[in-house]
Every structure is written in C-alpha cells, then in structure tokens.
C-alpha cells in the first residue's frame, strides 16, 4: 500500500528533545524516529559534542505524518524555535506499508 505523506526533520539541542517529544505526542502523530548525539554547525556556532559536560550535542528527529500534522508541527516549531535554535525542514515522501498494519 502506498500513501503520500510529509517528512518533517528537526535538528536541535539534545536538551530540547523532551519538549519536542511532548509537542509531538500532543499533536498526536503516529510515530517518530530520533537519532541522538548528532553534531554540527549552525547559527550558534559549532556544536561538536563534549564528553564531559554533555553539552553541545544535537538530536535529530524525523516524523512521517500527514499534511495537517506537518502544518501543526511547523506552527509549533515556529513559536519555540526562536528560543532554542536548530533547523526544521519539511519534504514529501511516499510511505510503503503492508496490507494490514500490525495491530
């Protein structure tokens, strides 16, 4: 089965992960995938990880969702992003799934 969906990707400070997850759970998306301990560079300079202080690490979150949910995420992110930084992108994706989704 093939469905047209949106793919929302967010990279932000690892300490914000909890907030973003709460937000996603509230919006009610069906799922998300998180990659921890991602590093990078952005408006706040290089964030190359730091073993002792656990600071300067990003996390990457990917959400496959429908247009309405993507819209809601984008709106929420727009309001909190001012405070935390990071990046949020949206693109199109086709979801492949089995005949009857696992219960």
């Amino acid at each position: 089965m093939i469905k047209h969906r949106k793919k929302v990707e967010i990279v932000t400070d690892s300490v914000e992960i909890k907030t973003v997850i709460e937000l996603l759970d509230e919006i009610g998306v069906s799922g998300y995938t998180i990659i921890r301990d991602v590093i990078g560079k952005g408006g706040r300079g290089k964030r190359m990880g730091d073993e002792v202080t656990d600071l300067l690490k990003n996390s990457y979150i990917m959400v496959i969702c429908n247009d309405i949910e993507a819209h809601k995420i984008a709106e929420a992110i727009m309001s909190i992003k001012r405070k935390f930084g990071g990046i949020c992108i949206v693109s199109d994706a086709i979801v492949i799934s089995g005949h009857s989704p696992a219960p």
Partner: protein
Amino acid sequence: MTKLYRCAAFFFGFFLFAIFKLRKWRMQVNVSIIIDNLLHPPVLFFFLGMIASFCKSDLKIPDPLPKLFSLYLLLAIGFHGGVELNKTGINHAVIITLGAAILMAALVPVYTFFILKIKLDVANAAAIAATYGSISAVTFITAITFLETSGLAESGGYMVAALALMESPAIVIGIVLYKLFEKKEKKEGSLVPEPYGFSWGKVLHEAFLNGSVLLITGSLVIGLVSGEKGWDTLSPFAKDIFKGMLSFFLLDMGLIAAKRIGDVKNTGLFLPAFGVVIPVINACIGIFIARLIGLSQSDALVFSVLCASASYIAVPAAMRLSVPEANPSLYVPMALAITFPFNIIVGIPLYFYIITLFWK
C-alpha cells in the same frame, strides 16, 4: 592562532622540563608542596591532555567513556564519605559545617552576580554567578588526593555531604536572580506556548534530583548504611583503582579544557580575570569561615576548595533549560578552561599555604 597553539605547546614542554629539574632541588626550596602537587600523576595527566589538545593530536577518549570515569568518581567518593561519616557519626560540628556550606553556596552567587552585572547582561551574569556558587566534584577529589599524597590527615567524611549540599542551592539562587532582574522588554516571549515555558517544578527537580547530585548523595547514604563492613566489600573498587580512574578523567579534562580556552580568548580580560580572582576570594572567605567554626586544616582546605571551585556539569545543564538566553560558550569555558586548571595547579597548594599560616 596556530602560532598561539605552538607557543602553548612550547610553554608546556618547557614547563614539564622545569618541574622535572625542580624536583631535584625540592628539598632545598620552600615551594616543595606546589611541586609535589604538580608531580602527582593525575595532575600530570591533566597536563598531558592539554598538551595533546594544543598539538592538535587526535588523542580522544570517545563518548561515553568519560561518563564511566565521572560516574565512578562520584560513586566512589560518595561511598567513601558515607563510610567515614558512619565512623564519626552526625554530631554538632558536622551540622555546623554543613550549614556553613549551604550558606556559602547561596552567598557566592549573590555577590558575584552584582560584580558580573557591571559588564554583562542579566542572563549571563546569573548563569555565571550560579556556576561559581556551585562546586566541581573533580576539583574536590583532587584536593582529597593532594592531602593523601602529602601525608596530611584525611578530611572528614561529612565534607562529601557538604559537596552534595553545595551543588543545588546556587542553581536556585541563580534562577531567582535572573527572574528578579530580567527586563520585561521582550514581550514577544509570549509567543512561546505555555506548556513549553518556564516552571519552578522543573527547576527544583533539575536542581535537587539531577544525576550527579543523586548519585553522590545516594552513594553517601549507602556508605553510611553499610559502614565498615561495606567498605571491606567495595574498597578494592572504590579506593585502590581510584587514582588511576582519576588520572584517566583528568587526561580527558585536559583535552577538553585546552579546546575551550579559545572560547574565552576573545572576550577581553574581564572574564578570564574573574575566573582567577573570584576563586581566590571565595577560598579566602571559605578559609575564614573554616577558622571561625573550628575546622581542622584538612577540612579547611577541602572547604575552601569547594568554595573556590565552579560547576561545569550540573549548573550548565540546568542553565541551558532555565536561562536559555545565557551563552553557554561563556560560562562553560570559564569554569572548565580557566577556574578548573587554576584550582588544580595553583589553587589547591596556594589555599593550603594560606591555611598553614593561619592554623599555626
């Protein structure tokens, strides 16, 4: 830039050579106690880490191995302190010492905040003030090993309790200061939806139940409960390999501290000067209070080191969440790249020297 690194590398090479030479004369000279501290393997590994970083070597202790060392150090020091406390019991003197510790942890952020506000905005002033009010467990541990290697009396187990008690208040005071003095100018802040905003519950949770506070307090209680018998069980783990683990951790601290020096290089002289002068002042206040409440020389050293040290783990984590406007590349490098090396290398023997003058 690279020139600067080369200079630093040269400097450290020369430095190592010098202390090696000095060692031979240490019997004659009076600074022998500083030299002995510098020749202590864990401190030498700290230098090695700094040198490796200045040389841009790829030497690296990959994540999460440093966590292993820091968890180990907290567990071991907490447990050891608890066992000691079990021996001495919780008496009048202990309670006075703990009270003094909490007082200092609350006092330091307040007075430093007003010094910092001269040059910085409220958010950064509050975050740095909290950093210097709280403590660094590894500086504490290095002071303990300094006492041991110098053949001086051990400090009391209740100093570990003091360490645990001094970690949190500074966080709360820092955030209170921030909330009091924060200008209400940025009214667009209301765009942030309520559930993702500030909450005192979160702050207190972060302050009193963060991992390091809980692990050291918990290990202290376990040591207290299991006593001498528990010590026999765990001492090969918690004591014998302790200095090796400390060496490894300080090697990593050296690597990271050196990397961070660059961050404060461009902020002018105020912050680096603050990072050296304030610890000495705090140590002196600490020594004064220690004399007042009648601590032993060893306890006084440890107490002054607690006052002088700055937090680079618990406080920054809390500030990131509660004072996001503050710039972590200011308060972390100050604690990590200036105050920490200063205390480890110069501070501990210096404070001890001052104490020997007053306790005679």
